[in-house]
């Protein structure tokens, strides 16, 4: 299945027909094991074309968190190839990998991870901090993105003064502010009530419609069903890929 998907992408490149956009993220036979030995990922192949919205779904312990960390370049695989926005991560030093994260990857976490003592707009501006963007420009871009996620009226609010849904919107804005090639959302609705969850998912759909590439990592099958492509992972291997079929 997956091999076929890969092949089709490569063929598309070769023939110049481009039925699918070029891959933003490519994983080829990615394995990860920890001393023990515990093999958490067992040969994962995955290709995510530009502008796609997909779910990586699996029960807890299936290896999806490790997969997220490897896709997000927070961790290196034991073997296999990971290419993010064309960069072969194995060839990059830790410093260059940090740069890849700063410029091409956005993260949205279940726990939001907003910094206390900073306003919403300052939190979002932090998404550009390590890209070397000067403060006034960071602030302007952050305000713009907050407006896009519907929080124009909450720019100067502290995270503690925001609802859970609003906090996750701030976190999404922070992930988007550097205009990354790909956004990873790890259980983005895990800490939210059903209404806020729906709103967040609607926002992700809207962002996808605007051309953003978004990978949602979740254990929630229902939520995954609502996304255009589902990749199911179990025991460290992909067992189903609706996009690859």
């Amino acid at each position, binding site marked *: 299945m997956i091999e076929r998907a890969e092949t089709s992408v490569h063929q598309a490149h070769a023939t110049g027909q481009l039925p699918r956009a070029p891959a933003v993220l490519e994983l080829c036979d990615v394995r990860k094991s920890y001393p023990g030995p515990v093999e958490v990922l067992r040969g994962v192949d995955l290709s995510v074309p530009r502008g796609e919205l997909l779910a990586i779904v699996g029960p807890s312990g299936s290896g999806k968190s490790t997969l997220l*960390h490897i896709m997000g370049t927070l961790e290196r695989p034991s073997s296999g190839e990971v290419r993010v926005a064309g960069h072969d991560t194995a060839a990059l030093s830790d*410093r260059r990998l940090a740069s890849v994260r*700063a410029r091409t990857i956005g993260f949205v*976490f279940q726990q939001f991870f907003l*910094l206390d003592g900073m306003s919403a707009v300052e939190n979002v501006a932090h998404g550009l901090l390590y890209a*070397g963007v000067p403060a006034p420009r960071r602030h302007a871009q952050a305000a713009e993105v907050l407006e896009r996620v519907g929080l124009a009226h909450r720019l100067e609010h502290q995270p503690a003064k925001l609802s859970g849904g609003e906090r996750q919107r701030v976190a999404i804005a922070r992930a988007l502010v550097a205009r990354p090639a790909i956004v990873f959302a790890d259980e983005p609705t895990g800490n939210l009530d059903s209404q806020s969850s729906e709103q967040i998912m609607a926002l992700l759909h809207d962002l996808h419609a605007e051309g953003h590439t978004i990978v949602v990592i979740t254990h929630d099958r229902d939520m995954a069903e609502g996304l255009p492509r589902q990749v199911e992972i179990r025991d460290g291997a992909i067992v189903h890929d609706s996009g690859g079929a």
Partner: protein
Amino acid sequence: MAEPAPSRLLPADILRVGSVGLRTRRLRAALSGLGIAIGIASMVAVLGISESSKAGLLATLDRLGTNLLTVAPGQTFTGEDAELPAMATSMIGRMRAVQGAAQVKTTEETVRRTDKIPEEETGGISVLAASPKLRATLGASMSSGRFLDAATARYPATVLGSVAAKRLGITRTGVNVYLGGRWFTVVGILDPVTLDSDLDRAALIGFPIASKLFGTDSSPTKVYVRTDEEQVEAVRRLLGATANPEHPEEVQVSRPSDALAARAAAKSAFTSLFLGLGAVALLVGGVGIANVMVISVLERRSEIGLRRALGATRRHISTQFLSESLLLAACGGIAGTSLGALVTAIYASSRGWSAVVPPYAIAGGVVAAIAIGAIAGLYPAARAARLSPTEALRTV
């Protein structure tokens, strides 16, 4: 594909990021900064107070002049107490570089508040015959009344030193004291005499009345000599021979300002002791900062994880925590320096000195604080940088 440009943290942002922890945990930051501030304040205050006191003494010296010499009889060749010739003072007064000379002579008399007080209770006050020029020669000032003059020197009138007046319970002139079995009128009270505190515990009377009532001779027990500023040493060398041409070796010449200068120098010994204590306080403050920073790193694992996810390198993380520690210590240092300067100013003004805070104390205080901050921040910063991003993000 070309390698991506490295992550960058602009210099202005280092300060901004370093202050995040301080802004969000203000009380903790203030308390740990206080530790450093106290250490620095005590060091700056010790240096400031010691310098101010030195400056105060030197100002006193300047005011009183360093050109005062005293001449006193020493010992004879056979070890007996020598005497100065009666003409000593007038001979010294005729020296070219001498601006003025005045003498005192110790008497055997006692002074008491009234004749009802037993004779033994002298209160440690001595009765001295003094020449009228004594006040001007010493540069002493009157607390009240006036000094002896040619007229009052011939009558039963006395001028009390500051301590003597206090011990006798006398605060104004015009009252009588019982001196050598006679009633003497207090015509003046002296302010403390810095150059010769013996005079503070004395009742001064004129030579003529001393001679008339108590048979005091005019061989002086001490001669005060005011010389030209530039000629002090020259006069000093000649004083022995001038005061007692027959036995110049029986004459003791000293310079009271030397004692004051020695006192100014002696203060430095205490200064180093207190500086040592200040350094200990500073060290404790530094340990406090290190402690707070280590706790901060533990508490802020998720923030570290987030920053790594946002593209921070290990170096950016260690820079953040190091700059936080430096900032904390620098704030403590600046607060401590100001506090130390304030304490110096208050103490100096209470003593009537002009406040002197040496620039090296200010610079040293801030630099010491920053150095302590750097040392205290190194380990926590390295620990924060070592944390793997995935581990940091998992800890919630």
